[in-house]
């Protein structure tokens, strides 16, 4: 798949590039957050932006997340397009009132007169050896909040394309960045014209016939690995990368499950009340008579995110996924 012209880039670099291109193309795009300026962010995702565009375009804010998002609301009211960085998933919690009561609703509250084109970048998930409060998967909160788009890339090109789309969107977008994929590499040529994918379309990352793994973000590579491993067991697994949780691409997902007749939803977020329940329920509503087995879920346990030395037992891995696939009642049919 690699051509000579392409150089490997990390997801972090693609994200930086997306912001840089957006800022260059549109002077109303402003980046703000803790340490995003001089330092370039603790993950270096905003590296170089303050230097290139000045501190007024890429601003180190005081340390207060509600203040960051709240002032971003005001900036958006005045026609800017703020791109806000929350330093870690758990540190977005102080901004929840602003998010739920204002960001998600302003368009609706004002009959469409005051849209808020804000992108909220949230590094999320575990697997990076972080101590407590640094590895939460908080997507359940976001998807249950009408008025937000919730997007998460799993590949380097998607990181670029989806972030450009998020910044271009006239609606607020919670942009979940899988921390442990920041340093994942892909051959990707930032110098080429980049496709900007519309928000809301899932993609089949790997076609397969036996069952569908429905997943997103940090679990996509794990599912692809599981699909490879499954070949040894005689299963040909399809892997669907949702990319966008809201809006949800029912069409792509249901088409896949109708084809395969079996499905497992995989995510790192806790199981109870997590996105998996929603996904399993809507797949079942749409594909009931095609299902050979109930849609199963492989997810993080319903516990506070564990300490680094135990996280590997918490995170959905290849074995746990294959165990779930094995429980899809193969004896019964097909």
């Amino acid at each position: 798949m690699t051509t000579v012209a392409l150089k490997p880039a990390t997801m972090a670099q693609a994200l930086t590039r997306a912001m840089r291109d957006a800022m260059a193309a549109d002077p109303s795009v402003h980046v703000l957050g803790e340490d995003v300026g001089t330092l370039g962010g603790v993950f270096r995702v905003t590296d170089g932006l303050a230097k290139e565009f000045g501190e007024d375009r890429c601003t180190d804010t005081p340390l207060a997340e509600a203040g960051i998002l709240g002032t971003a609301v005001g900036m958006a009211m005045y026609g800017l397009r703020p791109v806000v960085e929350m330093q870690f998933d758990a540190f977005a919690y102080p901004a929840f009132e602003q998010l739920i009561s204002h960001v998600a609703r302003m368009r609706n509250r004002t009959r469409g007169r005051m849209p808020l084109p804000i992108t909220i970048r949230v590094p999320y998930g575990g697997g990076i050896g972080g101590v407590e409060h640094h590895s939460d998967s908080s997507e359940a909160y976001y998807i249950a909040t009408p008025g937000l788009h919730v997007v998460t890339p799993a590949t380097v090109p998607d990181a670029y394309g989806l972030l450009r789309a998020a910044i271009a969107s006239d609606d607020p977008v919670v942009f979940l960045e899988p921390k442990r994929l920041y340093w994942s590499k892909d051959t990707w040529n930032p110098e080429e014209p980049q496709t900007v994918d519309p928000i809301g379309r899932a993609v089949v990352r790997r076609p397969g016939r036996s069952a569908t793994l429905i997943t997103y973000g940090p679990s996509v590579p794990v599912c692809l690995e599981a699909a490879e491993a499954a070949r040894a067991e005689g299963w040909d697994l399809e892997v669907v990368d949702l990319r966008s949780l809201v809006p949800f691409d029912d069409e792509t997902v249901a088409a896949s499950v109708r084809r395969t007749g079996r499905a497992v939803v995989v995510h790192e977020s806790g199981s109870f009340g997590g996105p998996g329940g929603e996904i399993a329920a809507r797949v079942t509503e749409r594909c009931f008579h095609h299902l050979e087995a109930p849609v199963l879920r492989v997810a993080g346990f319903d516990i506070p995110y564990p300490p680094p030395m135990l996280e590997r037992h918490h995170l959905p891995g290849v074995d746990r996924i294959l165990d779930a696939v094995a429980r899809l009642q193969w004896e019964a049919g097909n």
Partner: protein
Amino acid sequence: MTVMEQRGAYRPTPPPAWQPRTDPAPLLPDAEPFRVLGTEAAAQADPELLRRLYAQLVLGRRYNAQATALTKQGRLAVYPSSTGQEACEVAAALALEDRDWLFPSYRDTLAVVARGVDPVEALTLLRGDWHTGYDPYEHRVAPLCTPLATQLPHAVGLAHAARLKGDDVVALAMVGDGGTSEGDFHEALNFAAVWQAPVVFFVQNNGFAISVPLAKQTAAPSLAHKAVGYGMPGRLVDGNDAAAVHEVLSEAVRRAREGGGPTLVEAVTYRIEAHTNADDATRYRGDAEVETWREHDPILLLERELTARGLLDDDARQTARDAAETMAADLRARMNQDPVLDPADLFAHVYAEDTPQLREQRALLRAELDAEQEGGH
């Protein structure tokens, strides 16, 4: 020989980073609320302005009464009256230029109307046919804000954005004494001071947050004393003295416009009515307290001043009253019409474009409504 000398070469030095950044003294409020009416300062006040304030106060009082009456008739879901606080409401609107922005809290319908918003549109939220009834961009008035203090960072962000764009726009944000306890109050003031954003924070200290008196809300010498902790000036003003409030706010707006940064203004006033029509104020305060404040009524204070200076005769008084009655009659008439509702509006403007999920839900509702119509129930 002092201890120091005994010790020879070693001389203490302050920590290297230490240089006092701002002189705190000018940031501290005066001990007494600033007043104009009935003082020497009143002589300087522009008669035209006083007359304008007077007319607006009378109009505002009438608006409050009419809106409260509308709750009794079931025309409004609820109304948080600003009776007794009209000087603050009116002065806030009048201190601003057209290009400026007002960020009202949920009690500030009157300021919104004084800014030019249609009196009926200002009540849409409380009537319950939609949330924000007016176009925020038409008169540069943010939506009436219910989650307390959350509008303050918006004002900061907007003012900051305007400054970045080179526009000399000021944002004035209103909040109650109770609202100052919220974290958002703190974060907004801090951002504003660090960014030197052109914002005026206007606290109406009306003595209560629903039933909770100020003494249970803060132990500070005054709310205006919070300003120094952010590095902005704090000003204390008699909130029932329309001329004083107008002067202090205008001064703060001017400072902000000229790049002098934010100001915190505390107006000491009183909520004469209950928290809303649904509240029973007798549960937490006595009539005597209310009576004392009635004697310090903002209209009374201004009327006295105008009368003493020969600026208000019976004619002028009557004109103001007539204008108020006309407004009230119009409001009554328009509010007595049932708003036109479309259930499909539920799905309007959730996003720029419906998600597939919303399209399905819209269709479901449509089918239900059709069935209802057919079924006749």
